[in-house]
């Protein structure tokens, strides 16, 4: 009896605690922005180097009004999505090949394992030599970054497919040449999806490197130009835009991933 009243008394407490947490969560960003505004305007810091949020917001509005924002956004999104799709497709294709066929794995895996740990940013100089400032060079960097992550997770996923499932499928009359589509690809799918999810953020890292290396439009390109003109508000606005885009991309992919692995 005593235990029961105890439990009853505790429940409203935990509800209240959860409500407080939600409230604090909702206030987090506004509080932070207010604090930032206060600190910037207090005179304790240089307002040119550390502009308050109102100045950043004005810069972003101006960026949108001038029509450059959408051009920049499209340029960056094009690079990220095209690079992601190309690198992802290539990674899945070669991952299936190396995971499934030992000969191909012996041929390619040593090479890939040597190239994979080199940070994609380190390829910027040679990419400029090879491609100049063309779009191809930027795509190359994003594809490069995405490819290795997706290749490795696909390769591992294909290798980790439960042997028991393959034996069961064989016993049910599944022809060996159909094993790939019936069992292996689906068995590896959860790994492939994890690899692709990681690759989403990698594609944004490499985008930064690609646009810093020289571009004519793009979010990061705009950040760099603003920096040269000491438009710190614009720089911060660009960073916020980049953060928002990659956040949205990650969330979209998480939602997609849930549908891709439909049986979980």
């Amino acid at each position, binding site marked *: 009896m005593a235990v029961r009243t105890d439990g009853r008394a505790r429940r409203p407490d935990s509800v209240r605690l959860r409500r407080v947490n939600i409230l604090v969560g909702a206030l987090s960003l506004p509080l932070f922005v207010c604090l930032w505004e206060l600190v910037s305007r207090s005179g304790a810091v240089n307002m040119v180097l550390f502009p308050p949020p109102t100045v950043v917001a004005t810069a972003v509005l101006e960026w949108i009004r001038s029509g450059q924002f959408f051009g920049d956004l499209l340029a960056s999104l094009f690079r990220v999505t095209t690079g992601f799709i190309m690198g992802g497709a290539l990674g899945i294709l070669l991952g299936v090949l190396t995971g499934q066929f030992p000969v191909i794995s012996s041929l390619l895996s040593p090479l890939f394992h040597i190239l994979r740990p080199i940070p994609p940013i380190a390829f910027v100089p040679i990419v400029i030599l090879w491609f100049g400032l063309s779009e191809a060079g930027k795509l190359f960097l994003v594809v490069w970054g995405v490819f290795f992550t997706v290749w490795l997770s696909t390769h591992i996923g294909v290798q980790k497919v*439960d042997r028991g499932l393959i034996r*069961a*499928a064989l*016993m*049910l*009359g599944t*022809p060996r040449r159909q094993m790939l589509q*019936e069992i292996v690809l689906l068995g590896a799918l959860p790994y492939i999806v994890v690899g692709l999810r990681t690759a989403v953020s990698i594609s944004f890292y490499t985008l930064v490197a690609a646009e810093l290396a020289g571009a004519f439009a793009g979010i990061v390109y705009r950040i760099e130009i603003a920096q040269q003109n000491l438009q710190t508000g614009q720089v911060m606005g660009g960073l916020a835009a980049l953060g928002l885009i990659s956040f949205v991309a990650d969330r979209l992919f998480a939602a997609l991933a849930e549908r891709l692995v439909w*049986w979980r």
Partner: protein
Amino acid sequence: MKLALASSSASVEEARKQPAIQVSNLSIVFDTNRGQNIAVDRVSFDVAPGEFVCIVGPSGCGKSTVLNTIAGLEVPFEGDILVEGAPVYSPRPDVGMVFQQPHLFPWKSVRRNIAHGPRMLGRSRAEANAIADDLIAMVGLTRFADAYPNTLSGGMQQRVAIARALANQPRVLLMDEPFGALDAQTRAVMQDNLLALRDRIKATIVFVTHDIDEAIVLADRVLIMSAGPGRILREVAVKLPRPRSSSVMLEPAYLALKKDCLDVIRAEGLRAFNRSEAN
């Protein structure tokens, strides 16, 4: 079906004489880094059409290896295996297998899992689903036809695995400790289910277990194997009346059979112990 029966009574007569499974002088050797390991040593036995044979023996004695070889998943080192008179080189759709783990395809619903075999043998989706739905009803999972395996209990998953193995209407059903991972209660229910099922499907069944009670409850004949290298020590015919259920374990005839089996196993255990002491 009728036509085949009428046309050749001679070949039917022949088929009745011919064992469903003939294992002769089967040896299986694995190459390990400590040299060759003889897993199975000159094992021979026949299984008559429609017979239910249980193989019992201690862990590691080669029960799974024998079964996998009959299934065509393992290649014999020496000896021959004939199923329905034809040698086995690779898995055949007229030989079904239920493994110790259910090994259900996690991305397929219960119905699609069971329909997989018929689909692979060229049936249309509608036909395959009809077969699956019949089997789902037979194993009592109608409510779960559209569920995914990860939402089912272990016993339910193993029932799906059995239904899936039956979907291709195998002449021979191989079962490798299918109830080994289940708790005692579920296990008894599954044994009764299997006994009831067996009266309807009329397949030849080879069932591996290390539970002597399970073996006697289910089988027409029990083969007792010895440990390393695996050999067949004794065959015990189980002449308990059918239809049977797990309550047969309370009968005196059952206890006498069990005593026979245990005597063989104990003698072998003692022999193995003395041998290892001597080395």
